């Protein structure tokens, strides 16, 4: 019963859990942002795997569209988080001076 | 016949990639690693593109593959130059 869909869907689940653990535990903000991206990639992989219909069939385009939306949301959130982290560090440095 | 030539070119190209990757992992310092990587990858990709072009048997696809090769060579050369320059600068400041 092992199919390409199942392999990548399970890999997606593993990446999701791996990223979740990192997002909760990584000591640095940048690491957490990385982890959230890995976790998101896991969910995306789950969706793309679900859409796959074998080498002959046409894949279901709906999950592809969802993932495209998800990728763009992820990059927006990443950019915002990094900008906030940079601003916070500036404020902390000012406070230290 | 074309298939045999194409496939063997692809395999030789993959071999160059493999050699480049091993060089990246095994060579002692940054500059020699860069050397191994750029040379092997440029040649490997060229052979790969050529082989795939022959396999496809379509001059338009071949042209596209050739353009890809050119682009990667240009970008790769510039990137290697930047990395090497950065490395040298760091050594100077040390």
């Amino acid at each position: 019963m092992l199919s390409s869909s199942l392999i990548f869907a399970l890999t997606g689940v593993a990446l999701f859990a791996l990223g979740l653990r990192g997002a909760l535990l990584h000591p640095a903000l940048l690491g957490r942002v990385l982890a959230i991206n890995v976790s998101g990639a896991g969910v995306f992989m789950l969706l793309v795997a679900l859409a796959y219909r074998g080498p002959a069939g046409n894949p279901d385009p709906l999950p592809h569209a969802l993932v495209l939306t998800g990728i763009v949301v992820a990059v927006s959130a990443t950019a915002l988080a990094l900008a906030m982290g940079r601003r916070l560090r500036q404020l902390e440095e000012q406070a230290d001076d | 016949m074309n298939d045999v030539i194409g496939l063997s070119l692809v395999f030789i190209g993959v071999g160059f990639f493999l050699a480049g990757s091993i060089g990246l992992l095994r060579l002692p310092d940054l500059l020699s690693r860069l050397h191994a990587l750029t040379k092997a990858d440029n040649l490997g990709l060229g052979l790969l593109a050529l082989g795939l072009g022959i396999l496809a048997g379509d001059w338009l696809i071949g042209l596209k593959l050739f353009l890809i090769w050119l682009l990667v060579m240009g970008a790769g050369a510039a990137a290697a130059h930047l990395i090497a320059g950065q490395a040298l600068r760091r050594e100077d400041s040390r």
Partner: protein
Amino acid sequence: MIIDAWLLLDLILALLVLALGWASLASPDLKRGVTLFIAFGMLLALIWARLRAPDLALAEAVIGAGLTGALLLSALRDDPGLERPGGPGRDGSGWWLGLLTLALAGVMGWALTHALVWHPNSGQAQAIAAALPESGVSNPVTAVLLNFRAYDTFLELAVLLVAVLGILALGPARPAYRPAGPVLAGLSRWLLPLLVVTAGYLLWVGAHAPGGAFQAGALLAAAAVLLRLAGQADAGLPGPAARRWLLVAGVAAFIAVGLAGLLGSGAFLQYPAGWAGSLILLIESAATLSIAVTLALAFIGGRQSEIPVSPVEKESTPC
């Protein structure tokens, strides 16, 4: 028993992507982690292509690996202290969270296997294929994004807008890079027109082949990133007032077309018969500009007018 060659390839890809994901998060050196993450993104693009999702492969390569990578690397440049391992964190107390996520993965895997093996379903593929001729485009992913589920894309552009407004509200831009040396300058002279032309091509071709507004916008943004790396502080963007108009263009185009549909046929975002293709291209063109400016501003990282006068001397653009 002979294992299918595809399955073998899939297993290798799956193990490789897991290893890269793990290594990028486990690395105590964040610079190494970011580099591994970019490789992870490229591998993802490969997997999307393998799973016959070329639209996603394009988007992942440009956005997921490319722009996200550039953002992460520039965050490291701003704060070299980040590379050091350690820092405030919950050391050692997180083992139970690790166990919890492991259990979660187990449960999800079980549920998924249950769904995939015993209850396979075809999703919306047939409904989409049946409605595709009426959608105005022949690339099914574009049809979903800009017609069937255009409302998602509409709100997604609003998400982009919020993110960029947030970044602009937070503070001044990151310091500019030093002017490029001859090699980088030469490269960008060659690459820039190529990127712009490719972006235009992707926008146009999205109607019937892989591509579309997001990939095109991201490529344009990549051109801006290249310009900024080569030392141009404003990344080739127009002035503040024009930027505002460009930022709202995508959402505004959606609203205008949507309202026309609401007044004409009673449903928001309903395209009049025969006009769907052109209206989608109109929305996509506006969205491409908005996405490009948004992502470029995200890379610049703040308000331009307040860039520190004395640029910080950083060793990120040699030559």
